[in-house]
Structure formats: C-alpha cells, structure tokens
C-alpha cells in the first residue's frame, strides 16, 4: 500500500461529497431561487439598509455628516407636524381597511355562496376597474366629489342641498373614499378564498343543530373566514399608510399624509436623513399596528364561540 493508492480513493470521496452537496435539496433550492434572491437583495434589502443608515446621519448644507445621531428620530417623534401626519395616516389607513373589509365581505360572500357557475365571471368583473390606470381612477373620484362634480349636481338637482358642498373633496374623507374604492378588489379576493375553503356541510350542520341563517353565519361562517379578513385588512392597511398619490390628488391641505412629508424631505427640503427617519418610524409603527390587528381579530374570533 502506498500513500498514492490511499490518496486516490480519498480524492474520489471528496468528489462524491461535492456531487452530493450539489445535489442536496437545500443547495438546489437556493440555486433555484437565486435570481429572485439577488433581485430582492439588491432592490429591496440594500435600499432599506441605506435608508436605515441615513436615518442615523445628519444633513449639513451640502454634505451628509456620517456621525451617529438620534436627532432625526427625536424630530420625527416630537415635532407636532410629523406626529400629526403619522396619526392621520394611521387613522386614514385603519378607517380605509375597516370600510374596505366591511364592504368587500358581502361581495365575496355573494360570489362564494351564490355565484354558482359564474364565480369566475364575477371575479373577472371585479378586476375590470384595474384595466385603467390608478391615476385615472383617482381623477374620476375628483369628477364625482368636486365642487361642480357629479355628486354635488345630483344632490342639488334632487333639492337636498342648495349650494355645492365643499366638504366632499380635498380633505381626509375624500382620501378615505378614494382609497376604499381603489383597494376593494384586494380585500374581496382573500375573503373569497377563505370563504371558498369552508366546507358547506358545516353550515348545514349548524342549521341542523337549530341555527337560523344569521346565527349559523355568526357562529360558523364568520369565524372560519377570519383568516381571509385578517389578510384583507393587512393587505389594505399596510400600503395605504404610505400612500402619497391619493392624498396629493384628492386630499388637499387636510388630507396630507406622512408619505407626502417623506417625499418632501427627499425632494424639495432635501433632508434625506430626516426623511429616512420618518420612513423607518412609519415602517415600525405599521409593523406594530399590523401585529395588533392580527391579535385583535383573533381575540374577537375566540369571543364569538
């Protein structure tokens, strides 16, 4: 036996090991998702890290001072204007989520329980508004809610009001109405899916045990569709907190939201560190609220038993 003779099988084994490694499931899985992973790292994780880094720096006239500071966060949390904007954004997005879910549920319920053979047709019809650009849809709400708009003319024609109401447009209510409409489909779909998953014999069993239609809905259908309600609420709430197109177009002075302030800091005011601190603060608050929403809906579900 020579060392060479012993060495060659050893070499063979490392090769076998390398092959085994390449064929192992985790490695193959990683290889499969790597394009997406790289994409996500470069376009999602890096920018967020950059934003977080900026939030701890300071803006001097034309340069950025890279000394660590919490000053931006102090401003973001204590300056009344930012606090108010954040509160208003949260208020708007929670209100929008609430109304979107409340309005979407009956539609999803109807399609799931009474859609019959036409379920896909109904779902298709719901997507039709999305064939036009979001800007056009917001603009059309301007036409409806405006001073000389459809709603005002209609109400005046009916003699309900004497002069056009200015309470309809350029305030947070206008933002809420527009966003509720815009996000309806995103709420209908998850609720629809969760309703579809409910075994219909469960409703029959509830009926068999003495429940009328309302009680069986409250005791069986509603609690079992809670996952859909949670996803719908989150899907609407999370992006609407940071919306800035809608408040810009229909919000007026009273409808400004936190994202408009962030945009201003990154744009005109050219104070990236403050803008970054506002972004991170908003992100954290949204995370907390989203977590709280899940917990509240779960608790309500438990109470309904």
């Amino acid at each position, binding site marked *: 036996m020579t060392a060479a003779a012993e060495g060659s099988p050893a070499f063979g084994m490392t090769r076998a090991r390398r092959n085994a490694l390449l064929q192992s499931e985790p490695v193959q899985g990683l290889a499969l998702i790597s394009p997406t992973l790289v994409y996500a790292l470069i376009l999602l994780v890096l920018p967020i890290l950059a934003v977080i880094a900026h939030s701890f720096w300071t803006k001097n006239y034309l340069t950025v001072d890279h000394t660590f500071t919490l000053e931006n966060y102090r401003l973001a949390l204590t300056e009344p204007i930012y606090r108010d904007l954040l509160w208003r954004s949260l208020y708007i997005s929670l209100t929008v989520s609430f109304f979107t879910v409340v309005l979407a549920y009956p539609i999803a319920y109807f399609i799931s329980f009474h859609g019959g053979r036409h379920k896909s047709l109904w779902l298709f019809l719901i997507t039709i508004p999305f064939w036009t650009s979001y800007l056009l849809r917001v603009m059309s709400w301007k036409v409806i809610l405006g001073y000389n708009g459809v709603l005002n003319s209609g109400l005046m024609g009916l003699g309900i009001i004497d002069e056009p109401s200015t309470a309809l447009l350029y305030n947070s209510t206008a933002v809420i109405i527009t966003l509720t409409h815009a996000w309806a489909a995103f709420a209908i779909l998850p609720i629809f899916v969760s309703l579809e998953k409910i075994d219909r014999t469960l409703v029959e069993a509830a009926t068999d045990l003495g429940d009328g239609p309302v*009680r069986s809905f409250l005791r069986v259908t509603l609690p*079992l569709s809670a996952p859909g309600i949670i996803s719908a609420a989150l899907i609407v709430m999370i992006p609407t907190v940071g919306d800035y197109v809608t408040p810009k177009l229909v919000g007026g002075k009273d409808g400004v939201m936190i994202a408009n302030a962030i945009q201003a800091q990154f744009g005109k005011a050219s104070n990236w560190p403050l803008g970054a601190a506002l972004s991170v603060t908003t992100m954290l608050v949204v995370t907390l609220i989203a977590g709280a929403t899940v917990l509240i809906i779960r608790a309500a579900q438990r109470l309904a*038993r």
Partner: protein
Amino acid sequence: MPERPQIERSMIEIRNVTRSYGSFKALDDASLTIREGEFFSLLGPSGCGKTTLLRMIAGFDNPTSGSISVDGQPMEGIPANRRPTNMVFQSYAIFPHLNVEQNVAYGLKRLKLAGTEERRRVEEALAQVSLTGLGKRLATELSGGQRQRVALARALVMRPKVLLLDEPLSALDKKLREQMQVELRRLQQAVGITFVLVTHDQYEALAMSDRIAVMFGGMIAQVASPKEIYQRPVNRQVADFLGGMNFVKAEIVEENGASLVLDTLGFGRVKTDKPKAFVRNGAAATLGIRPERLRVLWDDATAKFEVAGKVVERHYFGEITHLIVEIPGLEKPLSVTETNDFGADDIPVGTTIRLAYDPEALVAMAD
C-alpha cells in the same frame, strides 16, 4: 340479540314523494312508514335516491310533490333548523374552530340551559359515545372514529325524535366499521330514538336494522326485515344487491293462493312459496338460490333434493371455499359457498359432485 317488541306507532310518514331535477327524478313517488323507535335503513347503490330522501326528512331539500310528516306533524314549510330531527353527516362536519365539548354543546347554546345542566348533558352525551375525557381536544386532534363519535354525540345531545345517519361508517376502515356497527345498534337500543340510516353497504344494513328499504333508481323496491330481504327478495335486482344469488330460468306451470309450481332445467319441477308481492308476467319467472344454501354431499350421503354437476373453478377464502359448478341443462354454472370444515377446499377441479338443497331456500321471482 333478542327480538325487540315491535312498536307500531309511526314516526315518519312519507307519502308519494317525488323529487325532480329538471326531467331527472331523483325520487319517484316514494311512500314509506318508519315506526317509532326502530332502526331503519335506506339501502341502495349510489344515485338511487336514498340520500335525497334523507335530506328531505332533515329539511335540506324539499319534495317536488308529496308530503313528509314526522311524529304526526307535516314538515312542509318547516326549515331544517326547526325540525325534530338531527343528522350525522357523512363527512361528520365537525366544527374545526371548536373543541369537542363546544361541538357537542353547539345546539344546546340556543336552548339557554343553566350552565350546570348544559355541562351535564354534554358529559352524558360524551359518555354515551365513550368519549369521556376528550372534551378539550380540538377536532383536528381526533381520529376518524373519534370524529364520528363527536358527530353522533352532537346530534344525540339534542334528544331528537329522529336521528338521521348519512353513510356514517363509510369513511372508517373495515375493522372499526364492524365495531361501530355493533356500537351504533347498542346505542340505538339504549336511547330508543328512531334511527334512519343511509348506506350502500348491504352487510351494514343487515347487521344493524330492524327494517330495510331497498331502493333503485329513485324507487323503493322492497321494505322488510333484514332476514326477509335477504331470504325473500322481491326481484332479481334486490336479490343481486344483497349478496350472491344463483338465478335459474323457470316457467310457471301452476299458480294458486300461497304457492307456485315452476319447471326449471337444472332443478326440475319445484313447488315454492308465492312471494307476497308476486305479480306474474307471462309464464316466465326466475328461481333464485343463495350459494351458501347449496351443500356438497360427501361420499354416499343422499338428500331428498339434489343436483349433480362438475366443478369448473375453485376459489379459496380462508374459512370458506367458492365452487363454480356446471349443471347439465343450466346455461350458467351455479356458485356454491361451502365451509372448509369437511375439505371443500380440497375438491379437485373437474370432479363431479352432488349438491343438496332445501326447497325452502328456493325463491321465485317475477321476471
């Protein structure tokens, strides 16, 4: 099991019930009386209308015409949630968001019982189905057999006048199914509630029921006790569905009040009891005999009634052997089931054997 005294009061009256879906009749002019306290089975192949009938009794479906009454009360216009019936669903329909106790107490909540009374009834129901101590388990943590027991307890706790069971055992494996058959029967005798069971399994129906209605194509073919259904089927379809049966072509030579005289090829001229609902259709009829009613005659043994034939196939089933025996003159060979006590499993194929039969075991059926 001792015979129970028959209680003759009727619990469910089904009068000329038809259920049509467009031109298709799921149920065609069915009439039936189910007695109080009996274990009644609706037996038939899938699509025979048995589940439709059960769902109409429960109130999940309505007759196109005809009437159903439960305990003397017409059910027309009464929704499912206000009927004195409860159902055990085929899929069990256990509420997945509730635990066992909450499932069983589901229907009681509406009755607004005192807390202790509700607890007592839930405990009692769980004890009836041997689930004591599992009250806090979630539905997802239960086995198939346990889920079935929860479904049963949930319905029984309501103390219904009629318990409806929609193929309750079909999802269980063979051993558990046989065990549950015995338990269900025992439970029904203990609580004394009228049970209506839907099944496509003839052994299940035979083992559990006081009476069986056999259904085909939306119509009720025969209503009788398990023994009568098995031994005196009214037609070939019923005979065939209830297990193996040899059919022999026959010709009616004489018919009077209680008996029939038939000419057959293999069995010669035989005299049999005339079935209750026998309506002749010309001279042709069918004579049936169950495979286990033909016995192999050994050596020199003789019998008053016997036929001889050649064994063409032999199939071994452990405790029994199936023999296929060709009888001269018969167009189809007879199938014979013999226990293996005396060596039926050793009869070589090709041997000529003699088979004994009891004329009592011959059933005449109209063609």
